[in-house]
C-alpha cells in the first residue's frame, strides 16, 4: 500500500431534509432538530405510512431532469461558490464529475410501465427524461465540462466511493478539479423495496439504539470540490482527502459480513494511506442506518478498530439518502472537523447488550486532525474516507 498524496477539498455543498445548504443543515444538526414524515410527493398503501426525510424544494418548472439531477445541481452550485469558482473561471480547466446514485440511474417509472403492460401507448417523456438525467452527465452538461465523467452505482456506498475515486483522478492528473459526491431522490419504488426487505422503520430512525427497527429513507445531495495542488496554488483548503479504503465482503447480497470483514479491511487501508492510527482520529461519521444488522456489525468493528473514538450517525437527521449518503456525510464530516465538534447522534438512547461502542448523546468537542466518514452497502461494499484538517 502506498501513501497517496493528500487531495485538497476546497468547497462543500449539501442539500437534504435538514437544510437546503450546508450551513442550514449544520445549524439544524446542532439544534437537534429533525422532522421525518410521510412523503408529500407520493403515497404508499401500507397501514402505517413510513416516515421519510424529504427535501422541501420542488424545483418547479424543471421537468426536463429527474429530481436526483436537480438535487446534484443544487449541491454542486453551492460547493463551487464555496470554493470561489464561477462558471466562466472554470471554462479553461479540465473538470471531472464523479457522483454516486441509485435512483438517478434506474429506469423505473411506474406510470410508463403500467400503461405498457396494459397495451396502451405510454408517453415516452419519462424515458427521455431518464436518458437526459444521468447525474454525472447532467452536471457536466450544465457547466459544459470536458473531463472524466462517472456515475458510481455501488448502492449505499456510492457517494463515498465517488469521492475516493475522484481523489485518484486528481492525483493522476486526469483533471484539475473534480466535483465528487452523491445524489438521490426519494422514490416510491425504492420505498417499496426497503419495506419488502423489512428494514424500514415506521417510527423515526434510532441508529445504534437497542430498540432500533430499521431505517428511514431520505433524499438529497452532497458534493465536494477537489483540486490539484497546482490549481489550488496558495488558496486555503477546507480539508484534505487523506485516505480511502474500499473492500467487498463477498458474503451476501443484502446482509453485511457478521464480523465486518470488508469494513475492517477498508478501515485499515484508509488509515494506512493516511499514515494514521486510531489515536489520530477525532471522530467517525458512521454509516448508522438504524437497521438491526448494520448497526450491530458497525459498532462491533468500531469498538475493535477505533476504540474510544467518538462517533455518530447523521442519518438520524437526514434519513438514509442511499447514493447521496456518502457525499452528504463527507461534507458534514469536513464541516464538523473544522468546527471541532459533532452533534448528538439523534435517536440513540440505550445500547443493546452486545454493543461495545456507543455513539455520542450530546454535542461533543472533538480533538484531532483527522476524521472518518464510512459507508456500507448492498452487495457487501464498504468504503471509508479519511479527511484531514485544512487551513481555512
Amino acid at each position, binding site marked *: 500500500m502506498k501513501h497517496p498524496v493528500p487531495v485538497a477539498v476546497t468547497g462543500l455543498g449539501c442539500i437534504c431534509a435538514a437544510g437546503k445548504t450546508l450551513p442550514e443543515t449544520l445549524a439544524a444538526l446542532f439544534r437537534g432538530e429533525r422532522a421525518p414524515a410521510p412523503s408529500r410527493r407520493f403515497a404508499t398503501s401500507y397501514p402505517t405510512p413510513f416516515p421519510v426525510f424529504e427535501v422541501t424544494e420542488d424545483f418547479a418548472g424543471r421537468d426536463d431532469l429527474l429530481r436526483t439531477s436537480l438535487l446534484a445541481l443544487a449541491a454542486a452550485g453551492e460547493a463551487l461558490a464555496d470554493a470561489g469558482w464561477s462558471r466562466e473561471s472554470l471554462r479553461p480547466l479540465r473538470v471531472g464529475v464523479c457522483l454516486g446514485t441509485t435512483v438517478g440511474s434506474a429506469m423505473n417509472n411506474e406510470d410508463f410501465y403500467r400503461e405498457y403492460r396494459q397495451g396502451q401507448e405510454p408517453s415516452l417523456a419519462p424515458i427521455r427524461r431518464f436518458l437526459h438525467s444521468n447525474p454525472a452527465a447532467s452536471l457536466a452538461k450544465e457547466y459544459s465540462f470536458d473531463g472524466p465523467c462517472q456515475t458510481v452505482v455501488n448502492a449505499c456506498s456510492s457517494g463515498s466511493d465517488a469521492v475516493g475515486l475522484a481523489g485518484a483522478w486528481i492525483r493522476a492528473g486526469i483533471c484539475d478539479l473534480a466535483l465528487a459526491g452523491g445524489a438521490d431522490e426519494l422514490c416510491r419504488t425504492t420505498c417499496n423495496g426497503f419495506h419488502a*426487505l423489512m428494514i424500514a422503520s415506521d417510527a423515526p430512525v434510532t441508529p445504534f439504539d437497542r430498540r432500533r427497527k430499521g431505517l428511514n429513507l431520505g433524499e438529497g445531495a452532497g458534493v465536494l470540490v477537489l483540486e490539484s495542488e497546482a490549481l489550488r496554488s496558495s488558496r486555503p483548503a477546507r480539508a484534505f482527502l487523506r485516505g480511502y479504503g474500499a473492500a467487498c465482503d463477498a458474503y*451476501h447480497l443484502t*446482509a453485511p459480513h457478521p464480523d465486518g470483514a470488508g469494513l475492517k479491511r477498508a478501515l485499515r487501508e484508509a488509515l494506512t494511506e493516511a499514515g494514521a492510527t486510531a489515536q489520530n482520529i477525532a471522530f467517525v461519521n458512521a454509516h448508522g442506518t438504524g437497521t438491526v444488522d448494520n448497526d450491530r456489525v458497525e459498532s462491533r468493528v468500531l469498538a475493535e478498530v477505533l476504540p474510544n473514538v467518538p462517533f455518530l450517525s447523521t442519518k438520524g437527521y437526514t434519513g438514509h439518502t442511499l447514493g447521496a449518503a456518502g457525499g452528504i456525510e463527507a461534507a458534514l464530516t469536513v464541516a464538523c472537523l473544522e468546527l471541532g465538534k459533532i452533534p448528538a447522534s439523534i435517536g440513540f438512547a440505550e445500547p443493546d447488550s452486545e454493543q461495545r461502542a456507543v455513539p455520542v448523546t450530546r454535542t461533543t468537542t472533538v480533538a484531532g486532525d483527522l476524521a472518518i466518514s464510512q459507508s456500507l452497502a448492498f452487495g457487501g461494499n464498504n468504503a471509508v474516507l479519511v479527511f484531514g484538517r485544512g487551513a481555512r
Partner: protein
Amino acid sequence: MDIKEQLKKILVEELNLEDLTPEEITDDMALFGEGLGLDSLDAVELVVLVQKHFGVEIKDMEEGRPALQTVATLAAFIEKKRQG
C-alpha cells in the same frame, strides 16, 4: 391440498429450489441453515409469499422468526392467524 403441501410447493417453485421436489421436503426440516439452506433474503421473500398465497400478514421478524422454523411451524402459524 393442505397448507403444508401448499407451502412445500411454494418453496420449490417460488424460491426456485430446482434441485428439490416438494415431496423431498419434510414437515420438520429446518428451513434455514442446515436443512433447506435458506437465508435472510428468503425469509423476507417468504413473508411476502405467505401474504400473497394465504392472506396472512407477518408484521415483523419478531413475529416471523418462530413461525419460519419449519413447514410445520409456518403452517401452524397460518392456521392460527386465519382462525384468530
